[in-house]
């Protein structure tokens, strides 16, 4: 559009200071954390001795951090699968224009407005081994003795205690993928589906050959959003389970918080946070690149 130079310059007077502040608080601070992670700083004495990758080396040889990484991996995987499969399922139910659709939508989505702390406190009560659903099964006459988040059993590196967190997190975020898929489904022109019906395609055929392929970009976006939430997970675990026995429900975010602010090992905490950042950057940077590349002129 028509845009005289001196006017654009006036715009910079607002954008540049705001961007500068943000850049200091994001990129400046990340570099600062990086520097701390290379030091032996304990947060109190001004001992910023450079010790190179020592903190990182120590982390990767610690039982706790390795467990954390596996927990993150499995939590992310199951959280994503449940939210995407379940979210599509719910959106498809609503797509069929059920009566009271608005009510169903409201019910599926309401957990999303809650804080992870609320969700955590609530599900800790619902899934507590003696009180929760176990007691419900007892009432119904079944023997149930699953320890939920106190379970120390595992299958390979997958700790069963994670199931509790996956349930709680999925309860909160299923509605999110449902909303995304529903928006996507409603964007598909009716004619495409009608003509497929005229050609004799059944419901499953339409889902498989039309709906699912057209939802691919949305599925991808949902994976990114869910992935970056689960890679950072902190509040839910903090409120619901803590790190659990033998770190069965520990995550890097929790480890970082405890190490830094409860244990005063600032340098080690910084190293954990840098690893978390790298994990997320691996997912987000390609995504942002593909989103904004198309807009370059």
């Amino acid at each position, binding site marked *: 559009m028509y845009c005289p130079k001196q*006017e654009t310059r*006036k*715009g*910079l007077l607002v*954008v540049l200071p*705001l*961007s500068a502040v*943000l850049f200091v*608080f*994001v990129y400046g*601070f990340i570099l*600062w*954390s990086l520097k*701390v992670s290379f030091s032996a700083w304990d947060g109190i004495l001004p001992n910023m001795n450079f010790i190179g990758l020592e903190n990182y080396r120590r982390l990767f040889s610690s039982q706790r951090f390795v467990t954390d990484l596996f927990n993150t991996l499995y939590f992310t995987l199951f959280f994503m699968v449940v939210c995407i499969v379940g979210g599509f399922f719910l959106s498809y*139910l*609503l797509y*069929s224009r*059920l009566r009271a659709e608005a009510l*169903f939508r409201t*019910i599926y*989505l*309401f*957990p*999303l407005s*809650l*804080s*992870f*702390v*609320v969700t955590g*406190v*609530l*599900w*800790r*009560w*619902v899934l507590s081994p003696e009180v*929760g659903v176990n*007691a419900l099964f007892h*009432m119904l006459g079944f023997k149930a003795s699953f320890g939920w988040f106190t379970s120390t059993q595992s299958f390979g590196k997958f700790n069963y205690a994670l199931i509790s967190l996956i349930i709680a997190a999925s309860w909160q975020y299923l*509605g*999110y993928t449902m*909303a*995304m898929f529903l928006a996507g489904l409603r964007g598909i022109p009716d004619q495409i589906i009608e003509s497929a019906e005229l050609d004799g395609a059944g419901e499953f055929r339409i889902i498989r050959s039309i709906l699912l392929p057209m939802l691919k970009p949305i599925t991808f*976006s949902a994976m990114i*959003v869910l992935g970056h939430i689960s890679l*950072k997970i*902190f509040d839910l675990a*903090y409120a619901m389970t803590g790190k659990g026995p033998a770190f069965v429900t520990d995550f*890097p975010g929790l480890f*970082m*918080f405890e190490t*830094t*602010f409860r244990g005063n090992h600032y340098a080690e*905490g910084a190293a954990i*946070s840098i690893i978390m*950042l790298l994990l997320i950057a691996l997912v987000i940077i390609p995504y*942002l690149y593909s*989103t*904004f590349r198309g*807009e*370059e002129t």
Partner: protein
Amino acid sequence: MRSRTSVVVKYFLAILCALLFLFPLYVLLNTSLKPFSEVRISEMWIPAQHISSEGFVESFSKLRGNLLNSFLLVIPVSFFSILFGSLNGYVFSKWKFRFSNLIFALIIFGMFIPYQSILIPLVQSLNKMGLYGHLKGLIITHIIYGLPISTLMFRNYYAKLPDELLEAGMLDGLGIWGVFRRIIGPISAPATVVVLIWQFTSVWNDFLFAVVITQKPSIQPITVALQNLAGSQVIEWNVQMAGALIAAIPTLLVYIFLGKYFIRGLLAGSVKG
């Protein structure tokens, strides 16, 4: 595609799922309405025999101050997020300058970083500025880290407005800020509501910044206070559940009454240009 049996099956499944979703809410309400004497481990699922306000009275007396803190936090953060987000979003959407896309992408990346990676320098800096441990420090933190998402939401909204609208203003002799004040500002209401709701809920629900920056119980927002209430050793489940409900009510109300905008914000949060 819409045969009768399949419709019946779909209703059945939709209702079943709705019950599963509401089930924890039943537990929350049921437990919070029980008197302490009725909160027995084996009877968590049984409906309250005597409705009691005990849990609510006690948790409210403990959380009242923190509830107020959360409002004192959310109001200024929302105001400045809207102000800065709309100014920023406007310039980024309509006034291309050198590196504007690069700068914008770098700003958006700030939305995704794990805040742990800036936490240590943040604490150090707030400490130096004398803001650590104060609500003011938490307010400034949320305004700054809310900038990416509020800029993105306003930018996406402004990008859809036709350029002719601005050009007409320019021809009338309005400058970049004249156009913003007279033309863009008055039609910004839809985006403003979305940003307001988004920032209100995410700042209200935040825990990480709050637990790190506010140490004194008297200045902690509701999420931290709730966690402390629940973390204590005495198992007064009715009080805890009532506390959780109190902490959840403001955002639940926002969601119930402004759900349309809430969903719009949600979808915008997944970076759709």
